[in-house]
């Protein structure tokens, strides 16, 4: 099952400066959850949400223990495609056959619960907003699993943008 994110959630708009930590320097996988833990420790009055892929999340997912133990309030949005999707997309763009980038995942809801966190699984785009609101209004650590379709990258980045830029 895959779904498209509502546009206002998929875009990364912010209302205030210095409220988005977007790692475009080292751009390492696995930095999302630890960064959110640090952000929540420094700014406990603000709501903190992480957006990460399933691959990056699982590189430091053990830090859920830290977040739960410190009684932090963090919402983790996991985009699940059962692959290193960005690399797979680049691989396809280079005309290479699919190799070595498909992976399995744990059951994220059970995984969250095993740490004492709360797990949610989005099954339709209509429920995503309500699920995120519920997670933010509650306390504690929340994991929201969102199945995504990386072929959308091909449509948007390889076709739509090229078509629109050709019109300019």
């Amino acid at each position, binding site marked *: 099952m895959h779904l498209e994110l509502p546009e206002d959630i998929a875009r990364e708009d912010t209302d205030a400066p210095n409220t988005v930590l977007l790692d475009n*320097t080292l751009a390492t996988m696995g930095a999302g959850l630890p960064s959110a833990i640090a952000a929540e420790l420094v700014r406990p009055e603000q709501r903190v949400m992480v957006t990460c892929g399933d691959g990056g999340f699982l590189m430091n997912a053990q830090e859920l223990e830290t977040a739960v133990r410190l009684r932090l309030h963090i919402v983790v949005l996991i985009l699940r495609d059962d692959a290193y999707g960005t690399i797979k997309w680049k691989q396809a763009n280079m005309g290479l056959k699919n190799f070595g980038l498909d992976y399995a995942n744990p059951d994220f809801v059970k995984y969250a619960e095993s740490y004492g966190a709360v797990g949610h699984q989005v099954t339709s785009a209509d429920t995503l907003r309500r699920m995120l609101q519920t997670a933010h209004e509650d306390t504690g650590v929340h994991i929201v699993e969102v199945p995504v379709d990386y072929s959308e990258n091909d449509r948007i980045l390889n076709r739509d943008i090229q078509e629109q830029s050709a019109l300019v």
Partner: protein
Amino acid sequence: MCLSTLEPGATNFVTAAAYAQLGGMPMLIITWQKPIESSKQGQLQIVDIVDMMRPLTKYTRQLAAVRRFHRGFAKHFV
């Protein structure tokens, strides 16, 4: 500020140091080291942490004596 024990803990700081260095995030890392004058366990858990971290940090030193603590180390707290 982050603390680790000796080498396996210290090598885990490599990616974190690179993240902080490129991201412009102030960070102080303190790691342990095995006894440096003699080692009854050969090379067990010994790598050159200073050389390992030098390109990822602004400043990396080994404090081999307590008297060097104040001169070489305390200034980085202020």
